[in-house]
């Protein structure tokens, strides 16, 4: 048992539960629950968005990739970062002007409510659940290792806290947990990077030189290696990372928590700054670890492997630069990171159920706010249970492909239709539904037939689909499906839907008629 880490984590939990209590007293209406009343500032939302992106997977995973392969780790970081300017230029403001609680509000703005919301809610739930399972399994293993508690307890603890934050505190608590964690993680990594640079006399050249000197791959770690050697795979992975972010429901939902398009714009500016800063720190941490962790025998087991696996290098580095107290802090932050991200995911899944499925599809907009909030709380509980059960079921499965798959699926099922609904007058209900489904099924099928599942999980000799990332193909199919089924749609409803585009366009451009912040 790591008592320093456990006690620091307990402090974090107590503090966030107090925040949740504070938020619960302020969460009265559906708007409070889904979007914190729409009253967050650009800075707060920017930090929360950054918090969603700088997850435990990126902190531990990217630093581990740099530790093992050097430069290739940076390619992942750049792909995720490059998506943010695009999100800002293309969708952030329009999303805020058109939507209220979920991105399905935007897609269904001028289309038929029932089929479009059913499809969007399905897309949201698939993405949120896949992401949740990946996080849960990762969390369980990480916590088992860091805190010395069993996998079962770790997964249950994550589930219980996640449900508590969301059901009681809604978006307000979820956002503040995310902000607190983002500040902790950014401060912790800043300290680590500072200490690493200090070790090398504040010379990055000296740091890189030592890393090259001790790494088995030598100078090769300073240049791109085998990761993106195939151009088709490279473009496909790039597309998936860039537009996958713009299809993640828990990220899209964050744009409704600010008061207007101007704050939405500012939040992306801050978020891009924080995410970029974090990735720059990760370069120092990853390459610093090559020297400060890689050459230290006490971080390796008898066989010479890193204790706890490759993902633990950032944690070992924390011990190397700051001793056991700082190790405890970083372990607690890693746990907090997982909690904050799963809470956001659970909330986005629950709003798809309560707002899109229950209030808009089942009750045709006739449900009261109290009923809608009750359903979303029940939905959160069910999603929490499901996440814990799936986390236990998949404990010893190889699910490394899931986190890659999530972005490719989000880029294919949600993003194309969302983009077309805002930019293309011709999109009809039939096109939107068929486009989403084409994206979803092609992404899933291509991943299963590709090397990640067909070879690595199912142990076949040769993959039926040669590329490890499907985004290039599945996104094209989604756009193509949406286009073909829209232009061939000559029904009266389709004509009406095209006719409503101008009003939607005016609102998306100017914000005239956009949902404002709720008044208290």
């Amino acid at each position: 048992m790591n008592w320093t880490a456990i006690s620091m984590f307990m402090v974090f939990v107590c503090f966030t539960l107090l925040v949740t209590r504070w938020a619960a007293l302020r969460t009265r209406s559906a708007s409070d629950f889904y979007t914190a009343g729409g009253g967050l500032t650009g800075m707060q939302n920017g930090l929360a968005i950054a918090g969603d992106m700088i997850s435990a997977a990126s902190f531990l995973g990217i630093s581990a990739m740099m530790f093992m392969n050097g430069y290739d780790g940076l390619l992942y970081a750049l792909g995720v970062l490059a998506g943010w300017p695009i999100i800002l230029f293309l969708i952030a403001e329009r999303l805020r002007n058109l939507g209220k609680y979920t991105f399905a509000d935007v897609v269904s703005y001028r289309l038929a409510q029932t089929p479009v919301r059913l499809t969007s809610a399905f897309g949201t739930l698939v993405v949120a659940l896949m992401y949740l399972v990946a996080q849960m399994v990762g969390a369980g293993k990480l916590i088992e290792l860091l805190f010395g508690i069993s996998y079962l307890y770790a997964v249950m603890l994550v589930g219980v806290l996640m449900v508590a934050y969301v059901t009681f505190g809604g978006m307000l608590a979820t956002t503040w947990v995310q902000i607190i964690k983002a500040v902790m993680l950014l401060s912790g990594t800043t300290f680590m990077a500072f200490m690493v640079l200090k070790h090398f006399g504040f010379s990055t050249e000296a740091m890189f030189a030592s890393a090259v000197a001790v790494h088995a791959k030598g100078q090769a770690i300073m240049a791109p290696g085998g990761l993106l050697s195939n151009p088709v795979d490279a473009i496909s992975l790039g597309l998936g990372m860039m537009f996958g972010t713009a299809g993640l429901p828990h990220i899209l939902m964050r744009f409704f928590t600010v008061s207007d398009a101007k704050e939405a714009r500012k939040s992306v500016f801050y978020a891009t700054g924080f995410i970029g800063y974090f990735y720059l720190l990760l370069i120092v941490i990853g390459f610093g670890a090559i020297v400060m962790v890689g050459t230290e025998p006490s971080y390796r087991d008898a066989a010479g492997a890193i204790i706890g696996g490759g993902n633990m290098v950032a944690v070992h580095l924390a011990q190397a630069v700051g001793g056991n107290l700082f190790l405890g802090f970083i372990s607690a932050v890693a746990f907090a990171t997982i909690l904050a991200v799963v809470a956001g995911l659970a909330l986005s899944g629950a709003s798809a159920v309560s707002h899109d499925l229950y209030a808009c599809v089942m009750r045709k907009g006739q449900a009261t706010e109290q009923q809608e909030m009750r359903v979303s709380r029940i939905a959160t509980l069910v999603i929490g249970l499901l996440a814990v059960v799936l986390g236990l079921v998949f404990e010893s499965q190889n699910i490394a492909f899931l986190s890659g798959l999530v972005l490719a699926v989000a880029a294919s099922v949600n993003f194309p239709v969302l983009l077309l609904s805002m930019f293309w007058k011709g999109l009809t209900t039939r096109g939107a539904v068929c486009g989403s489904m084409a994206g979803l099924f092609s992404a899933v099928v291509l991943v299963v037939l590709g090397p990640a599942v067909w070879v690595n999980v199912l142990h076949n000799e040769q993959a039926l689909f040669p590329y490890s990332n499907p985004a290039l193909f599945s996104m094209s199919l989604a756009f193509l499906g949406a286009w073909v089924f829209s232009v061939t749609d000559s029904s009266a409803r389709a004509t009406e839907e095209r006719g409503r585009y101008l009003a939607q366009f005016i609102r998306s451009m100017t914000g005239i008629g956009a949902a404002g912040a709720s008044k208290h």
Partner: protein
Amino acid sequence: MTPERIASIANHPDFQHLVRRKRRLNGSLTLAMLVIYYGFVLLVAFSPSTLGQSLSGGVTTVGMLVGVLMVLLSFALTGIYVHRANNVLDPLNDKVKQECAQ
């Protein structure tokens, strides 16, 4: 909104001006970002040795500098956009809202 109101806003010269300005700003910045990022991806795919060259005789490579520049450029482009939107587009947007208010 009534059909008459929609038509009156859509035909308003200030609205059309706003739409043109927004399209130009969003379009050019989106294009810039896509060219920068996919240019980098293609460089990684087709000519990794370019990125592996030494920057100034030491171990630090051109690729490392390009990576850091990519981060700074992404941030700079969002900064340019926010600056232009706050100072040029927002006043124009407010004018449209005011003139088209009923």
